[in-house]
C-alpha cells in the first residue's frame, strides 16, 4: 500500500462508526505481513537438532531452560526441532535409540549436532556412555565422531564441550577432551559454565537466519565473546583509580578478589543472567573466567589476584 492510499483510507474512515478504521488498517497490516513472509527472518525453517550429552554437569541444558524471549517453549515451537535430547525427549530406552538412529539417517547433512560436555578418550571412551545397545556400550567418543561427520553444523555448548572445562580439570583422570579434538572439523564453541541462554539461543538464531556466525580466534561467536569482561565492566572506573575491594561484598573493583575479567572474553556486564537481572560482579564477587579455554585451572585459586594465580597453581 502506498502512502497516498493509506492517507485516503484514514480520511475516508475517520468518522465511520464502529472500529472500521482500526479494522481496515489491521487488514492492511496482515496483508503486508503475508507479503513479507518471503523475506529474511519471516520465513525461517526450523533447525533439526540432535543434542548429545556427555561429560558435564547438565548445567547447560538447565541454563538453556532459563531462556526468556523466547522462552523454552518458544524455542521448541519456532526455532528448533529437537530430534534427540537425553534431557527433554519423551522417548526412553530402545525408543530413544531408535529416535537417534532415525534422526541421524533422516537428517544426515542437515541436522545441527549440539554436544554438551567433554569427551573422555581414556579406555576407548568408557567413561562416558550415551546408552547401551544390548550390552554394547555406545560411548560418547563413538557417537560424537559418527554424528560429527554427518552433521551440517557442530555446536559445542558449554566450556566442557568447547575446551574441556571442569571435566578436564587437573588431573583429568578420564582424559576428557573438547569436541573439536574428536570431530576434526569446524566447531562453533558457545562456551560458559554454564552457557548463558542468550549466547546459545542467539547462536541458534544466527544459524537459522544467516548461517555460521563470525567466530573469534578460539572459535566462539564473536558477537558474544569478542570483548573482555574488563572492557565493559561497570566497575572499570574503580580499577582505573586503583580502588580495590577488600573483601567479597564490597562495591569496588574485584581484581583484588581474584577477578579474571581482564582476560575473559564475554559480554556478561551488559548481557546479564536469567532474564538479564544480574552477573557475578554485580553480586559483588569476582568473575572466574568460565568462558575461557583455560577454565577452571587457569582461574584457580579463584579468590587470589591474577598476578599470583600462576605461582599458586604450580602446587596443584
Amino acid at each position, binding site marked *: 500500500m502506498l502512502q497516498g492510499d493509506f492517507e485516503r483510507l484514514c480520511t475516508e474512515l475517520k468518522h465511520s462508526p464502529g472500529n472500521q478504521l482500526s479494522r481496515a488498517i489491521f487488514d492492511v497490516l496482515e496483508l503486508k505481513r503475508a507479503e513479507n513472509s518471503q523475506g529474511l527472518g519471516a520465513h525461517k525453517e526450523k533447525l533439526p537438532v540432535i543434542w548429545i550429552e556427555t561429560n558435564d554437569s547438565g548445567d547447560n541444558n538447565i541454563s538453556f*531452560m532459563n531462556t526468556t524471549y523466547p522462552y523454552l517453549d518458544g524455542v521448541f515451537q519456532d526455532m528448533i526441532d529437537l530430534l534427540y535430547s537425553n534431557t527433554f*525427549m519423551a522417548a526412553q*530406552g530402545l525408543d530413544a535409540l531408535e529416535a537417534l538412529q532415525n534422526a541421524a539417517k533422516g537428517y544426515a547433512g542437515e541436522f545441527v549436532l549440539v554436544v554438551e560436555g567433554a569427551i573422555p578418550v581414556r579406555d576407548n571412551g568408557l567413561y562416558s556412555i550415551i546408552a547401551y545397545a544390548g550390552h554394547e556400550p555406545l560411548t560418547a567418543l563413538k557417537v560424537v565422531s559418527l554424528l560429527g561427520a554427518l552433521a551440517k553444523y557442530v555446536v559445542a555448548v558449554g566450556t566442557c564441550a568447547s575446551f574441556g572445562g571442569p571435566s578436564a580439570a587437573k588431573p583429568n583422570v578420564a582424559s576428557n577432551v573438547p569436541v573439536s579434538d574428536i570431530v576434526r572439523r569446524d566447531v562453533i564453541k558457545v562456551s560458559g559454565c554454564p552457557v548463558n541462554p542468550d549466547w546459545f539461543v542467539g547462536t541458534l538464531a544466527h544459524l537459522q537466519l544467516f548461517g555460521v556466525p563470525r567466530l573469534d580466534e578460539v572459535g566462539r561467536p564473536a558477537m558474544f565473546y569478542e570483548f573482555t569482561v574488563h572492557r565493559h565492566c561497570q566497575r572499570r572506573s574503580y580499577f582505573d583509580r586503583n580502588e580495590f575491594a577488600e573483601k567479597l561484598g564490597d562495591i569496588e573493583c574485584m581484581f583484588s578478589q581474584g577477578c579474571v575479567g581482564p582476560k575473559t572474553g564475554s559480554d556478561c556486564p551488559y548481557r546479564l543472567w536469567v532474564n538479564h537481572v544480574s552477573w557475578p560482579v554485580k553480586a559483588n564477587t569476582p568473575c572466574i573466567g568460565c568462558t575461557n579455554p583455560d577454565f577452571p585451572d587457569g582461574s584457580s585459586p579463584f579468590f587470589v589476584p591474577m598476578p599470583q594465580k600462576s605461582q599458586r597453581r604450580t602446587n596443584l
Partner: protein
Amino acid sequence: MSRKFVMFSPVTRLSGLLSVEVTMEEDVVAEANVKGTLFRGFEWIMQGRHIRDAIYMTQRVCGICSMAHGACASYLLDDLYDNEISENGQLLRNIMYASDFLQNHIRHFYLFSMPDFVRMPDRPLFQGQDLSDLRLNPRDNETLVGHYFEAIKAAQESHQILTLFGGKAPHQHSFVEGGVAVAPTADKINQAMALIDNIRCFVRDRMVPDTDLLARVYRDYFSIGVTPARLISFGLFRFGPKTKPFCGKEVCWTKADLAWWTQARSMRRSPGPGFGYRESNSTTRIWVILIAITRVLKPLVGRPG
C-alpha cells in the same frame, strides 16, 4: 525358572546419563542394577586445589542442584574457619537455596516426569513416547500439557530469584563461606516477592492439583518397586550465627540421632492415620519451601542491608 536380561538404556529426562540392567525371572523383576555412565572424577579434581575454590568448583557437580553442592562447601568452610554468620546472611542463604529447590522440583515434576503419564503433543521432541499406560481422559490430558508449558516460566522465575541475590544460575556466586556477598535491599526483596507470588499461584493452582490427579489415577504405582527405606536426612536450612556441621564426628550417629532415625524408619514402614500418599509426594515439600521463603522474605523488608 527362565531368566531374562533386559537393558533399559538410555533412561532419559534426568541430569546425567543412566542405564538400568534388569534381570527378570518369569514376569517378576529379580534384580535391577542402575548405572550412572558418566565419570569425571571430582574427588580427584578437588585434591590439591585451594580450599575456598570448593564453593564454586563443587557446584559444577550438577546443573539442576548446583546450589546444594555449593552450600555444603560453604557450610563446611564456615565450620573450619569458625565463621560468625549474620542473621540476614543466614536467612538470605536459605532463600537462595530454597529458590534452587523450587526450580528443581518444578522442572523435575513437569519436564522430567510428566511425559511418563501424559500424552504429549505430536512434535519431534515427544515422538516415541511410551503410550502403553496413559490413563488420563482427554480433557485432563490437555490441561496437564498446558501446565507443562506454564511450568517452564515458573521454573525460570525460581532461578531468577536465585540470580537476583546470587549473580547467576546455575552456579551462583554470592552464597559463600562467611555469608552472602549481596545485601537484601528493598528493591531486590520486592522483586523476589513478586516472583514468589507468581510461583506460589502456579504451585497452588497447577502443580498441587496436578500431583493429586496423577497420584489418584496412578495410585497403584505407589506400591510398585518399593525399596527398603534407606534414607537419611540431617536437615536442610541453617539458622543462627554458627553453621553447625551436618555430619561431623560429634554429630553423626549420636544416640538422639539413632532414636530419631529409628522413629523415622518406623513411620515410613507403617504409615499411621493421615499419613497417606500426599505426605510422601513432592508437593508437600514444595509447600514447606514456599511458606519458608515467604516467611523469611517478609521480615527482611525494612531492614537495612
